[in-house]
């Protein structure tokens, strides 16, 4: 049971990093990013490749994961200057699918659909038991705390004020003599770099990467989390992700209550449960648990 809880907590903390980035992109700046999993994927593969194919230390993989994911966000940022809302959403969705297809096809680098196995687990020196699990959790907690501190600092600064202004009315920002491009590109790169770090943690935690782990569903899980938690709130990203994990994992136990559902069908039931929760949220608490930016 402890191992199970530790596993859920680990995955939850990885997802919190993704939610924080999306909160910066969408909740604060209004960029409808439907391709967040693309940055996650780039981070995971960067860490996987560096740790299995080179002799570089694991830390280098994390740095590369953040750097490459951030770098990938740069052109997306340039695109965002010309495309509004729904078009940007489609382009980002296309971006993440492109990333997945690239890691599927470029076998010389990524081993294609077979993926990359044997990624070293973090804190392996501590043995396979709880000790290494807790060490990993502690590291993840520290990274999450640092990310929350970073994002709070950004959100509560003149920079944060300006990105919220861009979300509310971009043309007015231009009319006041500020270039929204500068802000959007920075926001995209920061959120993507944090997603890249999440990807590196994921790769080292699961131990292997395959393209199928990086389907658009992951992006939409993160969207569900921030909608349930409260869009535009750093606290909402954290609380919403915890809630998402409760639904995803809690619905596992539905099998005991509903024995007539097969294990295969259960996967669909889990997604259905999250979908139902999302519908109920939008009806009864559209501002999310922590309240969103429209209520202050």
């Amino acid at each position, binding site marked *: 049971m402890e191992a199970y809880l530790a596993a859920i907590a680990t995955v939850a903390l990885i997802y919190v990093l993704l939610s924080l980035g999306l909160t910066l992109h969408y909740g604060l700046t209004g960029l409808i990013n439907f391709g967040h999993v693309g940055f996650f994927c780039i981070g995971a593969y960067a860490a996987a490749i560096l740790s299995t194919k080179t002799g570089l230390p694991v830390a280098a993989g994390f740095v590369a994961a953040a750097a490459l994911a951030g770098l990938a966000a740069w052109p997306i940022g340039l695109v965002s200057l010309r495309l509004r809302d729904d078009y940007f959403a489609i382009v980002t969705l296309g971006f993440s699918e492109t990333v997945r297809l690239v890691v599927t096809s470029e076998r010389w680098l990524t081993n294609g659909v077979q993926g990359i196995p044997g990624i070293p687990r973090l804190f392996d020196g501590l043995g396979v038991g709880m000790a290494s699990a807790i060490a990993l959790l502690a590291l993840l907690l520290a990274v999450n705390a640092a990310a929350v501190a970073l994002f709070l600092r950004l959100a509560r600064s*003149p*920079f944060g004020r300006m990105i*919220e202004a861009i979300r*509310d009315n971009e043309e007015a920002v*231009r*009319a006041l*003599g500020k270039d929204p491009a500068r802000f959007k590109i*920075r926001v995209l790169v920061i959120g993507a770099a944090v997603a890249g770090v999440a990807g590196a943690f994921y790769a080292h935690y699961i131990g292997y990467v395959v393209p199928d782990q990086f389907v658009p569903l992951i992006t939409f899980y993160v969207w569900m989390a921030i909608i349930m938690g409260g869009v535009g709130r750093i606290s909402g990203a954290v609380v919403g992700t915890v809630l998402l994990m409760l639904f995803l994992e809690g619905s596992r136990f539905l099998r005991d209550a509903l024995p007539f559902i097969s294990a295969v069908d259960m996967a669909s039931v889990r997604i259905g449960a999250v979908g139902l929760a999302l519908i109920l949220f939008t009806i009864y608490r559209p501002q999310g648990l922590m309240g969103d930016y429209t209520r202050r």
Partner: protein
Amino acid sequence: MTLAVADLAIAFGGFRAVDGVSLAVPSGGLVGIIGPNGAGKSTLFSLVSGFLAPDSGTVTLDGANITRAPAHERARRGMVRTFQVPREFAHLTVRENLMAAAPGQAGETLRGLFLRPGCVRAEERAVAEAAAETMAFLRLDAVADLPAGRLSGGQRKLLELGRALMARPRLILLDEPFAGVNPVLVEALSGHIRALNARGIGFLIIEHDLPALTRLVSTLHVMDRGRIIASGEPQAVLADARVREAYLGAVG
């Protein structure tokens, strides 16, 4: 700050929205534009402020050709516009709306934010003070900490002007500043504009409220169907037969 517009034109499909307009706003000038709905006034503003690119013609600011400069670049040079329909940052408070408009803040750059936090704090205090002054000037202090989306139409107009002022402009383009504002406030607003003009800030104003505008400006241009059909001292322009036909005739 001198604005000169020469032969500016733009067509949407076959429709010539602005059709060879030339006008000038001298440094510290107070210039008005009137004209019936659809005459091309707001389109002219968008061309001058860089939200639309003209098919032909030039926009010159203090002698520099800015016809192709992006909108934010023109605003940074000191020419700031407002919008006919106020574009407040609805989820920011009135205070934050104003503070966001202050130019050149180090706290808006990541470098400033993380490497010079002390400087950013001092700057925030100064910006907050300027915002407080602007709110007092426009009598917005009572709603300082209300989200701008909850303001009344007239208050939004004031906020729109206040935000433009926070950008420290030397020339302001006002698009219908009096529309939807109650008569008492129109008088107050006119007073504010005169006071700002006395400090050397130039104005180019589009307005439908003829009496208020003619009392305010020293030069009046009348636009109709994308062209300027009359220009000059307000009373003389209003007496012009063509103007009465095109504009007053259309209204009355």
